[in-house]
């Protein structure tokens, strides 16, 4: 995938889709080197998310919190489906709740699953195989990083989770406005 296509995809997370291509075109035309280009992309995404956060922070935070709850319960349900049958086969059901409770810290190390989940809906509705492929690759890279080096640490994972929550909350916030 070319750098301009990646840049367009990153900007599409935060900007109105109809403005993305022309913005990337402006940054290409400026031609100030790759560092400036990618810094400009990152700053533009942050500026758009920050603008909506400042405009309606409570609603954005509410959306983010709701997404987090859905994610947490989904993760717990998947954990339960995965572990419960085998566990009940060899243990008493009284031991089940503490076992599930003890798996909660694993949320923090579930970056790839979270990323795939959080972007699955917009990707599937847009039917863009390119985006889906990007997120699958992102997930695989994340898993490899965790397995091989022990990083990302909890702090990095929490940072990514919070950023994703707000990017998603922003999308919902913007789409709600555009339908008003």
């Amino acid at each position, binding site marked *: 995938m070319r750098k*301009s296509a990646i840049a367009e995809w990153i900007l599409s997370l935060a*900007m*109105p889709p109809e*403005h993305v*291509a*022309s*913005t*990337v*075109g*402006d*940054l*290409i*035309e*400026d031609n100030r080197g790759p560092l400036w280009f990618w810094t*400009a992309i990152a*700053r*533009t*995404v*942050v*500026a*758009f998310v920050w*603008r909506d956060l400042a405009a309606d922070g409570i609603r954005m935070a509410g959306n983010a919190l709701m997404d987090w709850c859905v994610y947490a319960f989904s993760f717990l349900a998947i954990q339960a489906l995965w572990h419960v049958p085998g566990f009940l086969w060899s243990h008493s059901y009284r031991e089940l709740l503490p076992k599930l409770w003890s798996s909660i810290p694993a949320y923090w190390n579930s970056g790839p699953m979270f990323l795939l989940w959080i972007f699955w809906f917009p990707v599937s509705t847009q039917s863009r195989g390119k985006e889906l492929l990007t997120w699958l690759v992102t997930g695989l890279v994340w898993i490899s990083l965790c397995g091989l080096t022990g990083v990302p640490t909890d702090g990095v994972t929490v940072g990514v989770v919070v950023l994703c929550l707000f990017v998603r909350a922003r999308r919902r916030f913007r789409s709600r406005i555009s339908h008003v």
Partner: protein
Amino acid sequence: MQPITLGEFEQVVLLTILRLGDAAYGVSIRKEIAVHTDREPSPGALYTTLDRLEERGLVTSSLGDPTPQRGGRAKRFFKVSAKGVEAVARVQRGYRRLLQGVTLPGVSHA
């Protein structure tokens, strides 16, 4: 009806688009602002401001033709709407009224 309020940077952007006429798009707007105000706005600040101004109906935009030096991407040209012209003129009239009779020490003409 409440008068439209404009932030300082919003006024700068509107005046720059008016100066540039038919040639106002992202790159030219940033360059023009840098030339006339001695500060170069970050792309993030400029695009969020343009987006907000468009949402408020103060500017309109249209796509030009794709060009090779932009990786085949079209320019988005901006124009100040009648509502935008009115808003910026009203704010500027206010500044002029405030400046009348004020002496700025060390400044030959305001």
